């Protein structure tokens, strides 16, 4: 049974994950973690989550770096930052939405009681191009049985206005959610993945 985010959102690697290129903006720069540890950035995998925000894979440790107005970097170890989070931030608790990290594969997502429950969305993603509100398109026949729902333990902290670090402690996977723009960024299994969150398409 799938119990990690990467396998679930990629449907066991069968789906084409949305991707973004690694940024080179941090190369040659250094900063200090809150515990005083100095980090120097080289060719690590790093994804920009905002114009001034980076998620970095530093030898398996996922860091979040924010560039401050004075040009310095404020760097957080995402594991330590989320470690004490026993409850979801108020904005996330009870939130039901949809998310997608892979082309054509949309998942229903429920944030509740320190967990994230995912299941394939019953809504067809690709349908007849003639579809309209008057003539709803029939759902396409699924090629394989839909994956059963999965519930993942989740630690989440709000790192800025409507910005959340989501960490799955059982697997160490980390995702950044920018709820202002409904975008998701992560570095999973050594690759950059991007995605989006949306409300269910119902009026």
């Amino acid at each position, binding site marked *: 049974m799938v119990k990690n985010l990467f396998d679930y959102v990629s449907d066991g690697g069968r789906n084409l994950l*949305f991707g*973004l*290129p690694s940024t080179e*903006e941090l190369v040659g720069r250094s900063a200090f973690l809150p515990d005083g540890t100095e980090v120097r950035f080289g060719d690590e995998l790093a994804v920009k989550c905002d114009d001034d925000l980076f998620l970095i894979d530093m030898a398996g440790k996922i860091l979040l770096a924010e560039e401050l107005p004075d040009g310095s970097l404020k760097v957080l170890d995402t594991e330590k930052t989320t470690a004490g989070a026993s409850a979801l931030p108020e904005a996330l608790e009870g939130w039901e939405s949809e998310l997608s990290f892979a082309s*054509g594969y949309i998942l229903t997502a429920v944030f509740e009681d320190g967990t994230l429950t995912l299941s394939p969305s019953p809504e067809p993603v690709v*349908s007849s*191009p003639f579809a309209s*509100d008057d003539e709803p398109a029939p759902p396409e026949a699924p090629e394989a049985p839909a994956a059963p729902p999965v519930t993942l333990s989740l630690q989440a902290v709000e790192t800025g206005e409507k910005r959340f670090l989501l960490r799955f402690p059982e697997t160490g996977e980390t995702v950044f959610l920018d709820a202002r723009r*409904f975008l998701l960024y992560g570095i999973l299994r050594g690759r950059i993945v991007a995605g989006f969150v949306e409300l269910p398409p119902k009026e």
Partner: protein
Amino acid sequence: MQPNQSTGMLSVFRPPLCFELTGRQFTLVFDDGYDRTLVFKDRKKISFGTAGEEKEYDCDCLKIADRCYFVNFEDPTLRPRLGITLVLDLVQDLVTMALAHLYVNPKFPGMPSIDYVFGGIMREDGTVPAARHGYTTDLVGKSISWNYGRFDIAHVYATEHYYRVAFTARGLARAYRGRPELRQSQNMRYTAPEDVYEDYFSPIKIRDRIYLVGLLETVKAQKTGHGNSVLVLMNLDGMHDVGRSFGSNSEGGNGNNTLGAFGVWHDASDVLAKKSSLFIR
């Protein structure tokens, strides 16, 4: 939660701006016979132009793949309008420039047009590659539905010169959510068998799986008086694109907004089977 309402319709999913070229300078050797210098002066300012004619611009730079950049800028004081977009491919040392025009057509001032100029980027040793980015038929017969956050549209790459549009049921549902007036919009339909929106298309291959695609709204401009030149740089490995929409809107406003979207391959066989309603071929 609701998305940030301050972002444009097509800009919700635009990735963050790329600043990694800051401080770098390039000599771009174009096939129109003019060499131009491009300097990334800081995160938002560039200098661009032929020797002695360089101008400073505010720019948006977006990165779609390893060492592949979409650089968009315009002198906002210039009339007729000229939107300049550069695709810098530092893997192959190649550049493609798109020059979008508005208010040059005497009958339809709000109709955009676009020209492409290909070129090479001068290497440190002074050489320039002989190869160029080029027009392609790779996308013909295919379609991708692009999700811009609050708006979905399927671009149907009908032929090497014409695209068509389609909408998925999911995309229509998303568009109608909170904007029920769109149900009455002809732009959101084209559902009848005899009804197809078709317009000019320029597909350019940058490298494997990366394409620059230009879509013009000239037919719309003839009907409504305004239209856009949409230019997107797509990476099919990540089914993601970045780009910009340059044109005018129904309120007379001028737009030149960078954008981004997530894509899904779309079955457009029905749309492809429709007879062209406008273009003889």
